[in-house]
């Protein structure tokens, strides 16, 4: 485990140094990430400002969901999501083989290669939004926080699983940057209160394609709106990441390199 952390720290140091060669670009990109992540909350704000609302959800409650989404992305994107872009470029260039030659598991090397310190900026936007949303709500109970922490871990597992599915897909669907569009469109269901969807669709979004676990379920726990039913959601997240790991390795076996 110590070796794993040493690898991560070393790669992060190198990547930060690399980014510092283009400092203005780095800071601009971080600002952009923050601005981009605040887009959906801005729309929520505009909707509530015009006197409308999501039925049964106050503005702060709705923003809490989007804040949790931002926090989850702020952790998952710099750590796991770079896998997608590194698989995309390395497979296209035919240099993915270099990762396979290294003395660590291929999945870990792919993740390491994709570490992206720039994406930590998302933590800031998510954190600010989360704090703002909480400031307008009653203080959550201790149990609520414990419940939230467990479900937040499930949320990270779901995002990690998504990155594995998308990265695995790129072994066959070489060079298609549109996997990001697929991810953004599907996960956009998870940025709003789950109660706006039909009951059967809510079940689909919690247990089959568990985007509801990314933000809605943890935020509901913090608001004290969930019960034991969330255990099922946590199990769905565990199954989803297991499926993601299996899928990634299966797709890797099908990787034929540039030699065909």
């Amino acid at each position: 485990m110590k070796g794993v952390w040493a690898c991560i720290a070393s790669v992060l140091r190198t990547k930060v140094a690399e980014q510092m060669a283009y400092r203005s670009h780095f800071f601009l990109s971080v600002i952009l990430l923050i601005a981009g992540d605040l887009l959906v909350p801005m729309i929520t704000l505009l909707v509530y400002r015009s006197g409308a609302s999501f039925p049964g959800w106050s503005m702060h409650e709705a923003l809490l969901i989007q804040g949790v989404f931002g926090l989850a992305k702020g952790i998952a994107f710099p750590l796991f999501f770079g896998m997608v872009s590194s698989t995309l470029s390395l497979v296209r260039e035919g240099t993915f083989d270099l990762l396979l030659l290294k003395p660590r598991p291929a999945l870990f090397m792919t993740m390491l290669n994709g570490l992206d310190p720039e994406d930590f900026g998302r933590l800031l936007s998510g954190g600010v939004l989360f704090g703002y949303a909480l400031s307008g709500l009653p203080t959550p109970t201790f149990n609520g926080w414990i419940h939230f922490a467990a479900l937040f871990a499930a949320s990270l597992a779901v995002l990690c699983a998504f990155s594995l599915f998308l990265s695995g897909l790129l072994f066959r669907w070489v060079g298609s940057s549109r996997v990001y569009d697929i991810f953004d469109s599907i996960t956009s269901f998870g940025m709003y209160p789950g109660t706006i969807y039909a009951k059967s669709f809510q079940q689909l979004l919690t247990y089959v394609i568990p985007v509801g676990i990314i933000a809605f379920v943890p935020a509901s726990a913090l608001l004290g709106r969930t019960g034991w039913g969330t255990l099922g959601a946590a199990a769905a997240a565990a199954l989803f990441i297991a499926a993601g790991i299996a899928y990634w390795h299966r797709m890797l076996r099908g990787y034929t390199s540039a030699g065909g």
Partner: protein
Amino acid sequence: MRAIGFATYKEWAAYRSHMAVSLLVGPVYFLVQFFIWSAVFQGTTSLNGFTLEQMLSYFGIAAVINYLTFDFADWNLQMLVRSGKFVTFALRPIPHWLFALAQKLGHRSLGFLIEFVPVSLIFLFIFGIKLWPTLPWWALLSVSLSFLMNFMVNYCVGLTAFWLVRAEGVRRVFLLLKDISAGLFVPLTFFPEWTQKALFFLPFQFITYVPTRVFIGHYELAGYSIGIPALVALQAGATAIMAFLMLALYRSAMRRFTGVGV
């Protein structure tokens, strides 16, 4: 121009699965909007001048118009400048902006077949969105002007690469602001009054908001209600000004450009 457009069409046809992703992404985004606005409209019949049906039409029409006017001239130009490949264009007998426009025509012709037509049919038959414009000829003219405006705004962003070492950050910031100001994420009438007034005088509304409102047959922003012919005339004027700005910036960039052998 026809040869460049046709070559681009054939080149992208080889990557048609890349474009065909829109058949999933477009309807999924629309489904999200459907749920959001259906929930929001539960307690009210009208919001900032939109009924639920009009709101869904707005997003449906904006999405399909976006397939017709989509552009990445900015990315392409910045890549050419950064990689040094622009030098080959400096030697060609047509200006690069014309080449890029021809490429866009070819790319969007394919987009028309792979994205616009199927997604429109999905919106029409599954979501029941009325995609026939109230004033068809004015709508066609407005979408054509929006096509040009989007290209020229993006091309100007791409031209910043001649002055900046790494212009990607600027490009992404600008494009995000452009999409917000164009009304891609939410109709511009949802913004506060002072923002609407500012947006009224910026060219971005002519990319998405104006053609969508021309499609619907009614325009309103910042308290101004303008008839469709006058609105399209205003759009034509704004497009002409943008063309003038783009050409001036292009000439200035060409004066600045240095490359091996040029």
